[in-house]
């Protein structure tokens, strides 16, 4: 079953495709056989001894036995621990409501900021942008955001202040940007020095030294969405030479 899945890694699968766990016919007496555990990521579902695909996309694999479907979608579904860029839409008592582009608004407690106490409230206004991570993300419950990590440190999270520009890109591009040793990010860094905040919900916040540069970066990133690596390098090279 695992070998059957591994053969399909890198191929495009559609909803309804399935893989069967086949029972071992022969039991080895000499060496101990550990049953292989398969970890299913997004787009894959376990049903008894079958593995079902429920999203269209490319099958990916990570050692030892983690599989998931990499798909291009625009609507964000919250996942615990992921960081997102949200907009504060309301202040009600001791929680803020934050719109992060999902199916309902998330709540953000005023105590979930670095250094915040009951006396010392954080300065957050309606309309502010916050970079926060999900503490609770469950399909049956209201999602909850926090702007601190486990040890109470901000760790880069909090209100995004001081200008900058917010724009949307596809979720696939966000994952490519956030991947370790991302080529897009390093190429962009060489081109323009800038502050870049990438939320898993497809919202990107850019801040650089001038408005013009900020707009160029935003346009470049949005056009990266539909380009192959070679096309992107060509575009970046032309921008660097000042042709565009």
């Amino acid at each position: 079953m695992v070998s059957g899945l591994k053969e399909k890694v890198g191929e495009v699968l559609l909803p309804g495709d399935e893989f069967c766990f086949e029972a071992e016919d022969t039991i080895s007496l000499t060496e101990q056989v550990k049953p292989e555990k398969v970890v299913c990521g997004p787009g894959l579902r376990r049903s008894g001894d079958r593995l079902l695909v429920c999203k269209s996309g490319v099958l990916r694999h990570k050692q030892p036995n983690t599989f998931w479907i990499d798909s291009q979608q625009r609507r964000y579904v919250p996942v615990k621990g992921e960081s997102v860029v949200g907009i504060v839409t309301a202040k009600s008592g001791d929680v803020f409501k934050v719109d992060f582009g999902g199916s309902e608004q998330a709540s953000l407690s005023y105590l979930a900021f670095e250094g915040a106490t009951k006396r010392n409230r954080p300065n957050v206004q309606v309309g502010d942008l916050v970079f926060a991570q999900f503490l609770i993300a469950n399909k049956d419950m209201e999602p909850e955001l926090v702007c601190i990590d486990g040890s109470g440190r901000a760790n880069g999270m909090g209100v995004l202040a001081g200008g900058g520009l917010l724009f949307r890109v596809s979720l696939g591009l966000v994952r490519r940007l956030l991947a370790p040793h991302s080529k897009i990010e390093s190429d962009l860094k060489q081109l323009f020095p800038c502050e870049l905040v990438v939320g898993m919900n497809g919202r990107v916040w850019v801040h650089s030294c001038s408005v013009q540069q900020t707009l160029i970066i935003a346009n470049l990133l949005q056009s990266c969405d539909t380009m192959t690596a070679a096309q992107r390098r060509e575009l970046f090279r032309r921008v660097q030479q000042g042709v565009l």
Partner: protein
Amino acid sequence: MMEVCGSGIVNLREFGCEQSLLSRPDGSASFIQGDTSVLAGVYGPAEVKVSKEIYDRATLEVLIQPKVGLPGVKERSQEQSVRETCEASLLLSLHPRSSLTLVLQVLHDDGSLLSCCLNAACMALMDAGLPMSCLFCGVTCAIDTAGQIITDPTATQEKESRALMTFAIDSTEHRVMMSSTKGSFSVHELQQCIAVSQKASEKIFQFYRDSVRRRYSKTL
């Protein structure tokens, strides 16, 4: 990105599809069968009105917009057929208390409209990345006065036909998920039409696979 599949043993008109062509919806697709053309857009999972909220699954709303004028009784019945097919294939329980909206805009009607709507709906749902247990496709069969079965009829063939049937077929077991019939026919003819539709569906599912593969070819 447009691709075209020619006709073979089971006689289908040329069909083509384009995915994520609209910028605003979460998923979109256009599907063309001969001269019939439908554009579909999917929004969701999004916030739901309290009156339409279902506590254990998503609310699916299907809207069919005719080429001219306002949607009438005919569109309402097609909406219901499409909605029930989509509900059967989508895993709605994974997004409780949210809403999914599917808008189908008819661009041109030259027969087999319902099957074209179903195909466009399936491609748009897939593009939006919604969890589905299986895919589905629509096939329309017409029985003419001589008793011949015509798959994927044009508007004139539909008008001359004695009976008209549309089936939604699922991709895993090729079973009938929905049927919509008009006119008189015998049991034997119905079974024949189902068999023909199942054969035609294989071709459509292969086309789905090819077009999705082409779409992801840049990220492979």
